């Protein structure tokens, strides 16, 4: 049985706000990584979703680079206006500034395909923590 997912009662993100997601591998935003995240979320919470972070006044980009993204040497950066639409929505879930990118029909293939096709920039994280193993 799926667990309940907490949704925060927040105002919808502004169209010009940025959304970022740490890149796991060498190939930029890899559809297989997005799919794995979406399926794991479905298995846990009952719906397909891809985890992202919303950049805002409380969590500026430089702060996220040193916290939620600190282990990532690269991250993908989207603009909210580009990301929402074409069936995609942003849900405020978990603890701020975590958001889920979901598809209005809970369609896994469409979720991944539309997100990968959405204009985005892959940026280097100047604050990455390359901790010794």
């Amino acid at each position, binding site marked *: 049985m799926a667990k309940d997912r907490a949704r925060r009662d927040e105002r919808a993100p502004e169209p010009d706000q940025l959304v970022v*997601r740490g890149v*796991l591998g060498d190939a930029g935003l890899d559809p297989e990584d997005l799919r794995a995240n979406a399926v794991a979320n479905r*298995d846990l919470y009952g719906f397909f979703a891809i985890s992202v972070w919303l950049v805002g006044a409380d969590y500026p980009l430089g702060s996220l680079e040193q916290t939620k993204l600190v282990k990532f040497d690269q991250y993908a950066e989207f603009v909210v206006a580009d990301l929402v639409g074409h069936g995609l929505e942003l849900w405020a879930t978990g603890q701020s500034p975590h958001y889920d990118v979901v598809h209005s029909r809970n369609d896994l293939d469409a979720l991944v395909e539309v997100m990968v096709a959405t204009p985005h920039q892959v940026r280097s994280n100047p604050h990455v923590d390359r901790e010794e193993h």
Partner: protein
Amino acid sequence: MIYIDLPADLNFEDDEGRNIARLSEAVNPSAIHHGSVLVAGAPRAWSWAVVDAIEDGFVYFRQISAQEAAQRGPLIAPLPRPA
């Protein structure tokens, strides 16, 4: 090369801000239990971590520094032996 004990997407968090991974994807699932210190993530995005809970096939963990990991035990875990 980084030896990943528990493959994970460090973007994925639960409602308590803990990271989440599938227990079945761990290199050695039987060695993972509450309080285990391990390396979680992907080759280009990994962290030392401490396991907070295991429920319904998922591992919930918190990222910790190498210093904190060292305080909890040896940082170099033995490599798994081939079957």
